[in-house]
């Protein structure tokens, strides 16, 4: 039986034993006393390019990953609009009303054109870029500012509403490598998205350079 771990093997064994006993009573393994800690994987996919993508990336990744949208059957424009209204009214998605029509068009373009098998999959990006502070500012304003705020203190209009709130990037004590890792892969359990499929290596270093610059000028 190739491919079974010892644990699985044991499990199968006791399932086997169960069939032999008339009233199964399985001795539980000793209760766990030590803390259980896991790391959840970050998002497997992101929104694909197209008009309106920034709106989706800005408002539809706050609470859940993009696969929430891509796993849906192709919905009609009206159904997508209903879904967006539900996100807004029932769940508190902070999308302004005037952005909804563009977003709905984007969602329709996303769920009707490609079969699910050709959905974007985020590849492990080999990180080798350079970028300037000025490029970084543009990336930051497009993708990060709504959460981290114009000064980087985590007080953007969306960032303030989050639990935990968006990080104060001017107060971080982490090294460049750690920050890059978080920007690339997101932070599980928080609203911080993974950017590696969205931003090029050059844009990633650029935005890091800009964050460092923000902290200095602070």
């Amino acid at each position, binding site marked *: *039986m190739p491919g079974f771990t010892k*644990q*699985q093997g044991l*499990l*199968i*064994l*006791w*399932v*086997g034993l*169960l*069939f*032999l006993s008339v009233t*199964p009573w*399985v001795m*539980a*393994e000793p*209760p*766990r*006393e*030590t*803390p*259980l*800690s*896991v*790391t*959840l*994987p*970050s998002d*497997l996919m992101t929104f694909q390019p197209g008009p309106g993508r920034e709106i989706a990336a800005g408002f539809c990744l*706050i*609470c*859940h*990953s993009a*696969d*929430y949208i*891509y*796993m*849906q*059957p*192709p*919905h009609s424009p009206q*159904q997508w609009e*209903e*879904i967006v209204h539900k996100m807004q009214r029932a*769940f*508190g998605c*902070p999308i302004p009303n005037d952005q909804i029509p563009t977003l709905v068009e984007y969602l329709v373009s996303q*769920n009707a054109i490609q*079969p*699910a*098998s050709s*959905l974007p*999959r985020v590849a492990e990006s080999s990180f080798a870029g350079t970028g300037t502070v000025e490029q970084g500012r543009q990336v930051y304003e497009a993708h990060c500012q709504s959460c981290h705020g114009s000064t980087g203190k985590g007080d953007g209009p969306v960032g303030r*509403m*989050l*639990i935990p709130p968006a990080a104060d990037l001017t107060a971080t004590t982490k090294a460049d490598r750690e920050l890059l890792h978080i920007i690339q892969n997101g932070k*599980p*359990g*928080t*609203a911080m998205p993974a950017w590696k499929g969205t931003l090029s290596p050059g844009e990633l270093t650029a935005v890091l350079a800009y964050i460092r610059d923000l902290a200095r000028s602070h």
Partner: protein
Amino acid sequence: MSSPQDEPLRIQPGRVLGSPGITRRSLLRAALIGGGLTMAGIPLTYAKDAPTATLPFKRGARPLVTFPQKRPLMVMTTRPPQLETPFHVFNEHVFTPNDAFFVRWHLANIPTTIDPSAFRLHVRGHVRRPLSLSLHELRTQFEEVQLAAVCQCAGNSRGFFKPRVPGGQWGNGAMGNALWTGVRLRDILDRAGIKPGAVQVRFNGLDQPVAEGTPDFRKSLNVEDVLNDHVLVAYAMNGGSLPLLNGFPLRLVVPGWYATYWIKMLSDIEVLNSVDDGFWMTQAYRLPADPCGCVEPGEHPTRTVPIGRMPVRSFMTNVDHGATIPSGKPVVVRGIAFDQGYGIDRVLFSSDGGTHWQRAMLGHDYGDFSFRQWEARFVPVAGRTYHLQSLAINRIGESQRFSARWNPGGYLRNAVETVQVKAI
């Protein structure tokens, strides 16, 4: 439109094929071998190691990814995690292994570290003595109970709705059967002392919304539905601790009821003296308020009620749609059946799309809330196409439906499934 439901079932008398039945030995073999081949042998056609599995509906591609404490499962969504059990697992085990058990969270703010020694279960609200119980107290001060029960997501099989509906697009694998170990909720509530006038009990877990505007996920049950022998606060499944993604350290087990009530990381039990008016009870998980729980496709119900218990279902687990099967000798078709706790009375099997039925042999009975395995045999003729169907009937005579019901939430699917195979 005349539905096949109007026609009486034609059950072929005396044609229960001479299977020796499901012996313990064959079940044991199935458990140990993992269902690759049965005695008369229908090969499984699920590609077990493929990096992506595809469910048979639009946008059904699901990457197979390993989450903590899990084997590779079909990822519907990553954050929060919603993971489906690949269907071949149900052929391999009557109890779904913990590392293969489906995962479904609503809110992405899930604690990723749990310290069992610091954890407390709170009991409060309309009670005489509010409690704060440690895991140790829970295990040592209450009677331990063990029970087999199916946990099935309310949206299981939603992807098969026609027309399709929004929501989680599950195939048939958002369910699992486990042997749960824990203590009775009733015993805990007795200790706290429910005050007269209590109406519902509300359950909350440690998961939290990501944004302020999202209502916390809490569910409530009527007091009379929880004061029984089998609603448990469980700390173990299948003999091991709950995986974190299945609710470590405690989860509510409500046998017979849809999994929406089986609150994970259960930390708070609140007795209410009025009906819960929260979002997840009044706006979500609602069914049309009629015995069918359905409306005409595309229509909106005028009155709705919270979803509750599960209708009877059965599945074939060792035959895949479109597979080829050997002819000339008996082929064993295997499956599982379950209901809301009356227990399975019989499973009927048809190889000709529901014209003739034979009674399947039932496997060991692990209790009224468990999966019940079954098997049936037939001898295929070379060159013919077969429409295999199974139909479960529970002990109060409730049977599966022939025509799928429809409702806008995508709930309650229990139509007879058809698997088409060709004999060569």
